């Protein structure tokens, strides 16, 4: 059916083109319009006014029509061959007329059946290649349901109105046999109209094959046909206008509103309100006298530092001595480029023409620029002074004589380190104690041992009593303090000393029992070999490492290694009474000292020095030397100055009236400071250290507060050997001469004289 429907418009158009070829464009337009406007086919037919009996055309959707049209336009020439057998006669006629171009004369006769006039064409003689469709099917019943004829002997009527009888129906067996025997049975199908099997035509078979293959059933359809452009492309623009409306006026009359707008701009340009863009010719920047106008008051930024000017070594032909040796060259090459002192190696060329390009030129320029914009600049004042002016100008040591400058004699302890030495208050005698427990007494001028005492354990400390009318000294060993009288004393002194240390009537025992026991051996056992008095410290108090006398010679303070109550005891010899001044003390006490004039008491813990007033029993001040571990301390005879030495090599000078902080900190020993001592009468002090050296200083202290104390290093005394990392363990001055006695770890005790 579809094919048939499609055929109609094409035929009609074909006709029209044939008839009026001259009007072809107009017709084409109208035709186009017809399809697009969804008008009835009849109207168009009437427009044409040529074909009377045009078959009825269904109104169809636009798109369908177009598709069909497109499909059929390609093949309009062969339309007739595709036409079905069951066409209407009218159609048949028209199509025949179109395609064959042979018009057999039709006769008009009156139909027997209808009584109407009817055209009758002569019988067509089927030729050899004539279409099989022209073979007449006898049954002309039309497209009616065939079951209407089920009960009748005929199955319809032929063209002449005679009955067409039902053909004989084969039974099932015959059917089967025919499928076996008849080779064409499988390509035949039941024809409803003829009520019999009819072989399919080749076209029908082809259609079936195409359907099976999923192709387009129409064999003549070419899916790849070239597009024919009807409405687009060159010269086809106005072939089929969409509308026949006349061209509007606005198409060619200039716009009034546009004119108004343009005039507005023109007026603005005339009045100078709009200035055209500047011509781009002035890209060249021209220089002018920029410094003719006065500059701003702002100070100019600091100019960048200039690079260094080249020196002789950069010459292309330097003196030969500037050339690097092989070693220097290698060193330079091994260095990192940032560490190099010079960024080039001096080279020598015999002629200017041989000088090559410098390969780092751009790199150096770039580095300079990086310096200019990335490096922070600091203004630095260049010190143009002689470095020796930095050294403080001090009086020459030769003008500050006397001071000890050479070793006059040496006394040797064979068994152990000479831990402690002490010089008698009259300055004639020295006692020295070693670690084996031996205490020797010898004369300063001679250096020969007069007497020795042996104690059962290591000597912790020893010191002469500062009193001149009596003569004895204190020796501390493990948990004991011995009071010993030296031999060969003049009679009155000896008797006075004995009376002091072992009076006939013992002082009354203290009200509160003290843990310290004072013991005197019986008078009969007295000898110069044994101590006349012994104070037994309480158990586990350890070895007293320091003995400090009060200037009056009645009180003596000891510091023990055992840490009960800080290990500090103050003993009163006349009353045979000992007391621990501190119930509780912060830190481990290293040293104690009595103030030479006032009732003050210095206590050095590891890091601080505290000053107590003993009479008022309160803390006066805490000195902060900034030393990690205090090793030694001494107070100036005036009582206003204190020196503190530490194991971290520092020596701090405190002006007690000035501050809690040191007035001066010095670090000149290479190892820990072991001992310090102020000379009682001369302006001297000495420090000894584990580096084996003794440093003598001149230390003048002024009474007026405005003048700072003068400290002048005088002499470094060397002569003690270092044993096991220990050097000079203690130094003491002779009270009347500028002489120094020092005990070292090598077991020698030396006297240094001026």
């Amino acid at each position, binding site marked *: 059916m579809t094919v048939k429907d499609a055929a109609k418009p094409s035929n009609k158009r074909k006709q029209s083109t044939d008839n009026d070829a001259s009007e072809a464009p107009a017709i084409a337009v109208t035709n186009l319009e017809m399809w697009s406007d969804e008008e009835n086919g009849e109207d168009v037919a009437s427009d044409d006014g040529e074909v009377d009996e045009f078959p009825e055309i269904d109104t169809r959707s636009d798109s369908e029509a177009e598709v069909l049209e497109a499909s059929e336009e390609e093949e309009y020439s062969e339309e007739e061959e595709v036409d079905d057998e069951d066409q209407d006669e009218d159609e048949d006629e028209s199509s025949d007329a179109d395609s064959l171009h042979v018009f057999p004369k039709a006769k008009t006769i009156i139909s027997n059946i209808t009584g109407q006039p009817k055209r009758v064409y002569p019988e067509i003689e089927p030729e050899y290649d004539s279409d099989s469709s022209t073979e007449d099917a006898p049954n002309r019943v039309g497209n009616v349901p065939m079951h209407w004829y089920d009960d009748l002997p005929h199955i319809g009527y032929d063209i002449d109105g005679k009955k067409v009888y039902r053909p004989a129906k084969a039974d099932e067996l015959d059917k089967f046999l025919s499928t076996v025997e008849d080779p064409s049975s499988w390509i035949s199908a039941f024809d409803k109209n003829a009520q019999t099997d009819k072989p399919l035509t080749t076209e029908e078979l082809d259609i079936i094959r195409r359907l099976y293959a999923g192709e387009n059933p129409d064999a003549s359809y070419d899916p790849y046909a070239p597009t024919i452009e009807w409405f687009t492309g060159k010269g086809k623009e106005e072939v089929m206008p969409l509308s026949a409306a006349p061209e509007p006026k606005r198409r060619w009359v200039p716009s009034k509103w546009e004119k108004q707008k343009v005039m507005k701009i023109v007026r603005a340009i005339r009045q100078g309100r709009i200035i055209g863009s500047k011509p781009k010719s002035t890209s060249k920047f021209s220089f002018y006298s*920029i410094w003719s106008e006065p500059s701003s008051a702002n100070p100019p*930024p600091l*100019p960048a530092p200039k690079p260094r000017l080249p020196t002789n070594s950069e*010459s292309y032909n330097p003196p030969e*001595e500037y050339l690097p040796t092989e070693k220097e060259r290698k060193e330079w090459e091994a260095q990192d480029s940032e560490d190099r002192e010079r960024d*080039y190696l001096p080279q020598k060329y015999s002629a200017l023409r041989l000088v090559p390009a410098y390969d780092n030129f751009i790199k150096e320029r*770039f580095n300079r620029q990086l310096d200019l914009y990335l490096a*922070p600049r600091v203004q630095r004042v260049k010190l143009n002074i002689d470095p020796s002016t930095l*050294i403080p100008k001090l009086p020459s040591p030769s003008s500050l004589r006397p001071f000890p400058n050479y070793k006059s004699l040496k006394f040797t302890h064979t068994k152990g380190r000479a831990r402690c030495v002490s010089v008698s208050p009259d300055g004639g005698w020295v006692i020295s104690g070693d670690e084996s427990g031996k205490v020797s007494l010898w004369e300063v001028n001679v250096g020969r041992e007069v007497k020795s005492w042996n104690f059962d354990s290591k000597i912790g400390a020893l010191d002469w009593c500062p009193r001149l009318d009596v003569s004895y000294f204190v020796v501390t060993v493990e948990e004991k303090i011995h009071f010993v009288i030296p031999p060969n004393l003049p009679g009155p002194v000896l008797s006075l000393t004995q009376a002091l240390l072992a009076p006939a009537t013992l002082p009354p025992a203290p009200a509160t029992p003290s843990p310290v026991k004072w013991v005197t051996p019986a008078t009969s056992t007295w000898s110069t070999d044994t101590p006349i008095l012994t104070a037994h410290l309480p158990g586990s108090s350890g070895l007293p490492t320091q003995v400090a006398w009060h200037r009056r010679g009645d009180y003596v303070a000891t510091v023990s290694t055992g840490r009960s109550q800080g290990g500090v005891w103050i003993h009163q010899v006349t009353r045979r009474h000992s007391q621990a001044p501190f119930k509780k003390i912060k830190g481990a006490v290293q040293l104690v000292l009595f103030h030479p004039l006032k009732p003050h008491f210095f206590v050095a813990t590891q890091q601080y020095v505290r000053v107590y007033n003993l009479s008022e029993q309160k803390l006066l001040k805490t000195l902060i030397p900034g030393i990690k571990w205090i090793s030694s301390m001494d107070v100036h005879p005036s009582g206003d100055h204190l020196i503190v030495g530490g194991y971290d090599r520092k020596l701090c000078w405190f002006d007690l009236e000035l501050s809690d902080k040191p007035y001066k900190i010095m670090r000149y020993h290479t190892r820990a400071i072991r001992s310090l001592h102020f000379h009682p009468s001369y302006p001297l002090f000495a420090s000894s250290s584990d580096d084996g050296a003794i440093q003598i200083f001149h230390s003048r202290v002024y009474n007026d507060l405005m003048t700072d104390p003068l400290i002048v290093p005088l002499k470094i005394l060397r002569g003690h050997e270092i044993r096991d990392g220990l050097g000079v363990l203690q130094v003491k001055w002779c009270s009347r001469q500028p002489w120094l006695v020092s005990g070292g770890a090598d077991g020698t005790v030396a006297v240094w004289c001026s």
Partner: protein
Amino acid sequence: MARLKQKGKAGAAKAYITRSAAIKKLQCSLADFRRLCILKGIFPREPRSRKKANKGSSAPTSFYYAKDIAYLAHEPVLRKLREHKAFAKKLSRALGRGEWSSAKSLEDNKPVYRLDHIIKERYPTFIDAIRDIDDALCMVSLFASLPSNSRLPPELIENCTRLSAEWQLYVMHSRSLRKCFLSIKGVYYQAEVMDQTVTWLVPYQFTQNIPPEVDVRVMLTFLELYQTLLGFVFFKLYTDAGLVYPPPLDLKKDQGGAGVGAFSLQDTTRASGPAPAKITAVEVDVRKVSSKDVRQTIKHITAASGAAEADIEMDAPDASAEEVDEEFVVHPSRSDPQSSASLPTLKLLADLPQPLCTTLFAPYTFYLSRETSRPIFEFLVRSFGGRIGWPASSGSGSPFEESDDSITHVIIDRPLVEKPNETPEERERRLRRKHVQPQWVVDCINAGKILLEEHYAQGKTLPPHLSPFGEYQGAYDPTAADGAAIEDESESEVEEVEEDEEEIKDADNAALKSAAQAAVASEDPAALRAAELAAEAAGVDFSVFEKEVSKSRKLSKKATEVGVETAEQDMNKMMMSNKQRKLYEKMKYSQKKRESERATLEAKKRAIQKQNKRDGKTSSTG
């Protein structure tokens, strides 16, 4: 109660700003910030305490003065940079849409920034600008020698070439070149302009390659600034000198490779006159000297020095005789007739600051051999008033030919080669002219006088070329050390010889000496007495012995004194504060380093001299 002080509201925290904070504040990219910093001359500062400046953080950052950044915030260049950013966006959009006409109009109206206000701001006075053009000149002369590529457009290179030529022209015109130094890096020139010394470095004429680690963008930004600066500076210099700026360029000559000669200096008064062709003729050689003039001058010179130019053989002994008492001979010239009078005191004069002699080469005419670098020597000779010509292979524009009779010196830098087929004319010409190596020109300039050509003759080993800029105070001086070292050595040698003789003569004399010394050292009168007796026994005169004793006494005293002094000083160092001690150590370190440097150089020199002497001896004997 006083107001609470909040942290970070005053002091270093306010005064400094980190780089990232600055970028955030200015709302620009890092590249733009860098560009601004370069153009405006803003550089990072080092706060006294980094922690205080950076809110307690000690992370490594660079700090700027907050005020610097605040000033940057309303910098016209920054605004232009922002406009440029917008422009770039618009342009890329137009290009992406294919809107060519709008892209073109955008491109035409591209925002361009100007740097003149920055120049004025950074250099409020002209002197400030002159003081700071060293780097600019270095950069411009470097870029003038670079090949152009996609990153370095040819216009840029051309502009740099033009600027460096303009500067050279000005220096030549104003005769302000003072010093020159041929180094392994390039040629250093020093000029004195407006009482400011300007030193710049020009690389030798080779193609330079930009190494990959160099950021060309940074260099180009600097170059942008430097070009503007130099343009303004040159404008001022030229107009002050009554010249037209920019000097017109003769394109034809430039294409011929005339270099500096392609530019013509034009007086502002004459600029109105329509005679450009005439002007160019004038300026190729700044001073037009007729050959007759030159010949006369030469005659004058030769007459004064009392030597005939033609026969060098005769001249040679004379010159060597002069050489004995003086290092160089000054050729008296018309320009400074006093020089002959000052001859006897030359050595004294050498120590004084050299008088300016800007017309040093005025009486001479030079010719460059083709292997010498024309730009260098053309500049040098012309800035000291000389005339110079060159072969066509070194570029066009030579004012005279090689055959010109006025040529007095030929600057030649090739080994001496015998020419077998020499026409008598050529030979005559060769003998008449003095052939010198290029270093002679530079050494003459630095010495401020014409040096003897003998040492610099073609094919001779050149004397060392020393820096005219000098070294730090107390540095090793190769010229001074020369004489001293030789004297020292001779002295020591003499001593050695004497000692040898003495040893041979009387061995006991030495023994006596030692005895006396020992006696003095011990300071023991008995020992002294013993020594005296021994001397008497040996037959030595008493007075001699006395002298010996006093001498050794003095020596020992000196030694002990010095020892005591150093010991005292060492002791006094104990009393220095920590800060002072560190400063002292630092100064001592640098002193020692310099001394050791000097000592190594001197030692090397001595070793070389010894080697030379030995070589000379062996060669003479063998």
